[in-house]
């Protein structure tokens, strides 16, 4: 039990570090997190998503979470985590479209068209 919790923590921290590093390295304006293979979620993971979205926003990038399974959505809602500030979409295609529209709308002065 103890080992799992440790790994969870470390994995989450690692993910957060990696992500923020990549965002600033590539000057990314959008982050797409695909959780279609995530079948079980707990409050820890929920908070992790919210944190990642907040960090990304600080780095001027929009986060979109895609592929959430019904069971995961229900669990999050029952846990009282509505993940405000995290945009969601059904799948990767929709997610990209969402990012595109949000980038088009927000970054009119930035015409580099970063995918």
């Amino acid at each position, binding site marked *: 039990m103890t080992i799992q919790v440790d790994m969870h923590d470390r994995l989450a921290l690692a993910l957060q570090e990696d992500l923020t590093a990549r965002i600033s390295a590539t000057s990314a304006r959008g982050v797409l997190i695909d959780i279609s293979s995530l079948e079980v979620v707990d409050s820890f993971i929920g908070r992790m998503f919210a944190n990642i979205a907040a960090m990304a926003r600080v780095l001027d990038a929009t986060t979109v979470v*895609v592929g*959430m*399974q*019904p069971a*995961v*959505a*229900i669990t*999050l*809602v*029952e846990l009282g985590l*509505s*993940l405000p500030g995290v945009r*969601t*979409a*059904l*799948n990767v295609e*929709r997610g990209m479209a969402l990012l595109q529209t949000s980038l088009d709308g927000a970054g009119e002065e930035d015409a580099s068209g970063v995918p």
Partner: protein
Amino acid sequence: MSSHNGSRLPALLQEHEEELLRAWVQDQTQALATGQGRITETELREQSREFLGLLRRAAQDGDLTNIRGPAWQEVQQSLASLSKTRARQGFTPKQTAGFVFSLKRPLFSILAKEYQSDPAALGEETWTITALLDELGLQTADAFIQSREEIISRQQEEMLELSTPVVKLWEGVLALPMIGTLDSARTQVVMESLLQRIVETGAEVAIIDITGVPTVDTLVAQHLIKTVTAARLMGADCIISGIRPQIAQTIVHLGVDLGDVITKATLADAFAVALQRRGLTLTASRPRP
């Protein structure tokens, strides 16, 4: 032949079978005449004959004071299935348990004739048989109640399933017409089927119509908000429609905060918003007169 307990019940049942059957069926027919249940005399006679046969065998092989013994299995099963049938046919618990209890009168009149010269034995025999029939009768009543409860819980399940359909109004637009009160169990079912349909159809808009929901209190509102939030997590927006004036008043009085959920008075209005969302417009193909 006599039973383990020295009772002459098996012998009596054998010798006086026809006489007993006739009197018993007659008494039963009277008792079952009132009320809503209906049963033909042939069926009644068959049921009674079968029971007498099983009773005789069980009394012969088993202990009259312990109906949980293996010899009484068949009798118990037969009574249980009789209870179920009677419950379905619309008889009351009294009429169902009465099947067993009504055997007492004809049986005791036979006993009285048999033991005319031996009051002590009559008393003992009467007591043994009374205790036995009481046990069996009460068990029949229990079985009846249990099968009624099974019917009720199955109906509840069916109602739950029937009352939460998710229909497709248009490409990417789903509608949930809710009828009846919204409790936690139902909300769970609604959430699951809605999210499942969102995944299946790739819908972007879900319209939850509450025209058929009689009252909305804080609990119901909470359930609605949960459903909306869950759908949103999956990338679909929700519109709540069918808000009657009284409901609007209740919501404000209760201080319920619907957040930024779009609400519309009618399903038609909600549908218009949904189409707009998807970038669609309706144009008339024929000029209206």
